[in-house]
Each structure stands twice: as C-alpha cells, then as structure tokens.
C-alpha cells in the first residue's frame, strides 16, 4: 500500500516507518506537524523543524503543517495535512509510532476513518524495553533531545540510546513508574541514523534551554 507516516523525527515514528517499508509498503511521504505551542497536547516538539533534514536523508517527500498547538484545534490541522497527503500523494493509509497513548491513537483513528484511510500502528502495546532493544538491534542511532520528568536532568541531553541507557530506564521504571519508551513525555528523541537513511545526520550545533527537570536541545543539522 501507499502510506504516509505521521513523523516527529523521534524513534517511534521512524521505527514504525522502517517496519512498514520492511513489509513492502511504499512510504509516499512523511507528515510533520509543527506546533507553535511548545507544550502541544498531541505533537512531539523538540527539534521538530529538523524533520525536513531527516526526510532528505531518507529521500522521502515531507508535508510540514503548522499548527498553533491548541488542544483539539491541532487535530483539525492534522486532518488538513493528511488530506493534503491523500490529494498530492494518493496515500491509502497512515502509519503512526503510537505505543500506548490512547489519546493520540483515538484521534488519529477517527481522522483516518473519516477520510477512509487505513491506520497502521505497528508499535501498539509493544513492551517498551523490548522496543528499545529492537531499535539497537536494527541499528538505529538515537539521541535524547528533551526531558520533562523527575529525576532526569540536563546531563541527559545528547545521551545515546544504547544498552546502558536501557538499564538506566529500566531502573527508573521500577523506582518511579517511569515509561521506558518515554511515551509519557519523560523524554524525547531524535534519530540521527538508521537503515532508512542514505547517510547519517551530523549535528552542527545545538542550544540547550530549560531548568531543573525540564530541558530541551534545539539542533541545527546537516
């Protein structure tokens, strides 16, 4: 099928894209929603502007739709973007990287139903530690670019997802009920390389902003 991914640049939407392509689906385009509100209810925000760079490295077209990021209004902007993908790329379905968020999944399912599109959520209900292990096994290179949970601190920015990271989040899960894949907003990620990329992304510079247990890293990439 011809599909479009709701793409944030993070590990989950990138991995979902990889799984769909591996099963023979055509990724006609990526769709990124760029919220003006950095605390958007639906959309992953740190370095979302870098999705264009990632799309270039994947040789895939991208539709970038701006939104004010107001609750529920941003859903209408998402619907517009999906309609655009349907019109311009004749997509038959949408891929998401949703793991456990029924809030996100429900809203996207409703849009897909309205537009008569298939909705694929290949990471749905996946064990989150297993998900992290699969990412490493499939040679995904991922860094942390945002944190918003106790006891995480600024030194998490730039951390790579590797075996020691998995051990660390597993400990945090046991101690604090931390969501290991970060789907509760505990942390946000950026994929710098994976089997979908022609070449790895290099980070030219970055800027860190925040305080206490809430930090984000804005990237400039090539």
């Amino acid at each position, binding site marked *: 099928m011809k599909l479009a991914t709701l793409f944030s640049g993070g590990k989950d939407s990138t991995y979902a894209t990889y799984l769909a392509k591996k099963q023979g689906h055509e990724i006609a385009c990526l769709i990124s929603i760029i919220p003006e509100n950095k605390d958007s209810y639906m959309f992953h925000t740190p370095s979302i502007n870098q999705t264009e760079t990632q799309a270039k490295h994947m040789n895939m077209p991208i539709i970038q739709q701006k939104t004010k990021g107001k609750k529920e209004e941003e859903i209408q902007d998402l619907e517009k973007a999906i309609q655009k993908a349907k019109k311009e790329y004749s997509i038959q379905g949408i891929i998401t990287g949703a793991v456990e968020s029924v809030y996100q999944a429900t809203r996207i*399912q409703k849009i897909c139903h309205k537009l008569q599109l*298939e*909705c694929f*959520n*290949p*990471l*749905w209900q996946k064990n989150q530690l297993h998900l992290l292990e699969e990412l490493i096994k499939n040679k995904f290179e991922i860094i942390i670019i945002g944190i918003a949970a106790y006891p995480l601190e600024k030194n998490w920015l730039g951390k790579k997802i590797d075996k020691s990271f998995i051990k660390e989040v597993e400990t945090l899960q046991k101690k604090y009920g931390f969501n290991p894949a970060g789907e509760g907003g505990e942390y946000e990620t950026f994929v710098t390389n994976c089997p979908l990329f022609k070449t790895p992304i290099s980070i030219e510079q970055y800027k860190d902003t925040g305080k206490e247990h809430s930090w984000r890293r804005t990237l400039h990439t090539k």
Partner: protein
Amino acid sequence: MILIISTCKEKLHEKEFVEPIETILKDSGKKHFTRHYTNIKKGDLQNAKKIIITGTSLQDNEYLNNLETFSYLRGKETLLKQTPILGICAGMQILTLVEYLGQEVGNLNVKANFANIQKKQLEIGYFKEEFKQEFLGLQGKQEVYHLHQNTFKIPKNYETYTLSKTPQAIKHTEKPWYATLFHPEVRNKELIQTFAELT
C-alpha cells in the same frame, strides 16, 4: 496449545492486533501458535486446546468476504463445540454471523443477508462498560478500548454480559465460546489471561 487466528488482511496490522495477544500469552507461560484465517489446516484445529480469533483494523472487512473459511465453526456438530473460543471484535462478528448463517456460511452470496442483522456503530477509544455478571474475570464497571464501526445482532443462543445498548461481551449458552466487541489486549489483559487459564 492456544491457536490464535489472525483476521488481518494486511500483515502489518498483525503487529497491532495479533502480537499483543501473543505477548500476553507468552508472559503468562501459555504455549500458542498463530495462523491466518485463510490458512487453517485441520491439524491446527485438532491441536488447539483453545482458540482466540483476533480483531483487525477499522477499514478491514475482508474477512466478511471470506466467511466460508470459518465453516468449521458452524452447526451443532462442529469439531470445536467443547473447545473454548474467544472472539475479539472481528472475531465476535465472525462467531455471531456463523451462528446466524448456519449452513449458508459457505454461500458466497451471503453478504446480501447482512443488512438485516448489521448496524453501523462507530466507537473508538476508551469507554466505561458495566458487566451485569462476571465475564472472564471482569465485573462491575470497567474501562475498555473500542475500535469498531459495525455491530451485528446477537443470536438468541448467546447471552449478553454487559448493560450497554450494544452488547460488548457475550457467551454461547451451550458452548465455551466467548466474544468481546472491545479489544481486551489493550486495557483488559487479565481477560485474556483468564481465558487462557480456563479448564
């Protein structure tokens, strides 16, 4: 062994509708194997101590065009009348339709018969359902996850276990066949675990 029957037209959907069930069974220490509904061999049915028929995506109705592949469920003399079966969403539709259509299930033109037993009912997301009696470990008010756009009338030899206008959990009055319209693999994993433990 527990046989999981996938109703998914697209293999990619099995990651969403089949793998979570496989994970629940694996974590419960229950041996299982999975077959696509178009690829069930007689030996598979004979080896199955229990069967789970999965759900599939909202847009996928392909299984309704292939109901004859579920002929082994029909009639009073089915091989499986003592085998516990759990139908989830599409699985519930299959169990109820096979009951309604009986010997006609092998008739490729039966789709025309759906109109008087099918109803449009779009429900997506978390809903609170109330169970009037215990159903595979669930009782009282429970939050469940819906993802369906149709329901079918419940045959008279199925008992309804929820108070909602649209039956969400049913059981055959004579066979150990259960069905849910909601997806327990999302919010009510204990239901699948209880089913797997049935003796």
